[in-house]
């Protein structure tokens, strides 16, 4: 059972700060996703935990014990890479057994553990196959088995499914989630795919330009992003330029009452509205329907509003909307980003609606 703790971790490549002053705690048995666009430092962070990159500053502790000075082979971590995981000159079974042989386990025990590990990842008959005889998904499963067979304290996954096709990727992440729950292993999972992070993570750490933006559960991250970047990055979000006036916020055709305490930061502010928080309401502001996309159980509507870029709205399938039609729309809930401040406007927080991560 293991807790992982990153303390003020920093890493520079030349003049570029890959990771800057990152502090993060991962609880025992938790699945933590490091999420961010490419180049945000998430993989560098993972490699520092695994021992493949040395931090310039800060500390990495597992169960309170610093592991920064240890080489990868002496850390209680196991890594699954994005690709090129398996040694091509060994069979799947030999790949899995390699670490066990280094630990000089008796032969019978190694064979039993290898068999169990292959069974665990659903490939009981694949032990004698070489990596090139396995599909991409099977190779990644063997890599997971090889990592788990050593009973590490921390499992590290570096975008392990990003090279698989979409359907298999969805299937594999469900499997990994189940496996991780069953084994109860503390896991750090790196991904740039927010949908992947939202579906499997217990908590998500969003990174940008080497800086940790926010650490929260998927639901909280979706409902209460603390920076504009997170608001825009997680799920679908409409961003409107806004002005803070006396007791109210003006954005496009809307004026939202603000419950005091709003400080204008040079007048510049951004209103962030989820598509499902745009509601058809006779008392709302007049807008025009530009496009209606039927996404099965709900409609995605592109709205043309005076003074702002087109907005996306999710609405019930029953609503009869036609392109070109004028409608009235109200903002039921929004977040106002003004400098470093965030304010919640409107009604109570709604839980994330189905399909928060709409297809790009």
């Amino acid at each position, binding site marked *: 059972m293991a807790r992982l703790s990153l303390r003020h971790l920093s890493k520079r490549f030349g003049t570029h700060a890959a990771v800057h002053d990152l502090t993060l705690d991962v609880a025992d048995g938790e699945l933590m996703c490091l999420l961010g666009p490419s180049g945000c430092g998430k993989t560098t962070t993972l490699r520092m935990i*695994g*021992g*493949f990159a040395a931090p310039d500053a800060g500390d990495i502790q597992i169960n309170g014990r610093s592991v920064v000075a240890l*080489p*990868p*082979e*002496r850390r209680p*971590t*196991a*890594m699954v*890479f*994005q*690709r*090129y*995981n*398996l*040694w*091509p*000159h060994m069979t799947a079974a030999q790949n899995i057994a*390699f*670490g066990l042989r*280094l*630990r000089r386990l008796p032969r019978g025990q190694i064979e039993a553990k290898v068999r169990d590990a292959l069974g665990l990842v659903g490939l009981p008959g694949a032990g004698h196959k*070489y*990596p*090139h*005889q396995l599909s*991409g998904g099977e*190779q*990644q499963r063997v*890599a997971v088995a*090889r*990592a788990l067979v*050593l009973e590490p304290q921390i499992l590290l996954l570096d975008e392990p499914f990003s*090279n698989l096709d979409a359907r298999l990727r969805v299937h594999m992440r469900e499997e990994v989630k189940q496996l991780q729950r069953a084994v109860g292993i503390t896991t750090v999972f790196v991904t740039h795919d927010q949908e992947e992070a939202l579906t499997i993570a217990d908590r998500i750490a969003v990174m940008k330009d080497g800086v940790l933006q926010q650490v929260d559960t998927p639901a909280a991250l979706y409902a209460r992003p603390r920076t504009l970047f997170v608001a825009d990055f997680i799920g679908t979000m409409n961003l409107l330029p806004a002005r803070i006036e006396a007791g109210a916020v003006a954005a496009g055709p809307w004026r939202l009452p603000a419950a005091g305490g709003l400080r204008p930061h040079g007048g510049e502010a951004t209103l962030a509205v989820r598509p499902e928080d745009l509601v058809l309401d006779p008392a709302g502001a007049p807008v025009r329907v530009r496009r209606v996309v039927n996404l099965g159980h709900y409609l995605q509507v592109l709205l043309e509003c005076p003074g702002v870029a087109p907005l996306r709205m999710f609405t019930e399938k029953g609503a009869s909307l036609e392109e070109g039609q004028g409608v009235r729309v109200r903002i039921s809930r929004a977040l106002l980003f003004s400098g470093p401040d965030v304010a919640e406007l409107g009604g109570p927080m709604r839980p994330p609606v189905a399909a928060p991560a709409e297809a790009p």
Partner: protein
Amino acid sequence: MSVGWYWAVGGLRRAVALGAFLALAAFILGPLLTLLLWAFAGSWLFPNLLPEFSLKWWAYVLGNADVTKAIRMSFLSAPAATLLSAVICIPAAYAFARLEFPGRRVLLLSFLSANAFPKIGLYVSIATLLYRLNLMDTFAGVVLIQVINTLLFMIWIPTGTFRGINRNLEEAARDVGAGPLRTFFQVTLPIALPGLLVALLFAFLAAFDEAQGTLIVGTPNHITMPVMMYTLVLSYPQPVGAVFSVLLSLPSLVFLLVAQRYLRAGYLAAGYSL
């Protein structure tokens, strides 16, 4: 499917293709075949299409003390040079492939320098050096001059091979508990083996084939087969040269037969990738 077009374009084009193939085969294999015929020829007079079979030139060549001495010399010095070269170059190649150090590019290019200039000048200046070191007309001197010929192959091919091996494979080995040395010997080296074998083959041939430098450094007592060849071609009957040529090609033939087992091994041919 992919060769469907070939059968669709009719007989004439196929005939032309076949003809071109046969011409190429004759061009490549013809001289070798002639060599073999000559090597086993007793007498080969005008009206006969094929010579009469005989091993007398083999007996003649192998019975000549100077020749057998050169053969022994070649089969000792070329493997020694190849091994010495491998011991020096393979770790260096690994460093070139994996480490960033100042002067890396310049050093890598410097291995080209031995092959970038007319060798004879290089050999003469090396000979003056070996003379001072009392290495002229010694086995060690011959091996050293042959090593120079192998450097290019033993550095450049393994460097490319090592660079082609994804670092993840090595890191994965470290991750499951292997130290740097064990990782190299149990993961990197086996994966690099096909490339290293090719390098060894080229290096061996370069050493085995070396005549200019050996002639300068090794005469009169340390003569190898290629050096001997000059004498044989000039002052012996033609079949002797042919026999000797066949002997010269034997090691590479054996080496290729051994190597192809590894070169064809499944994991190489199947292009392992995700």
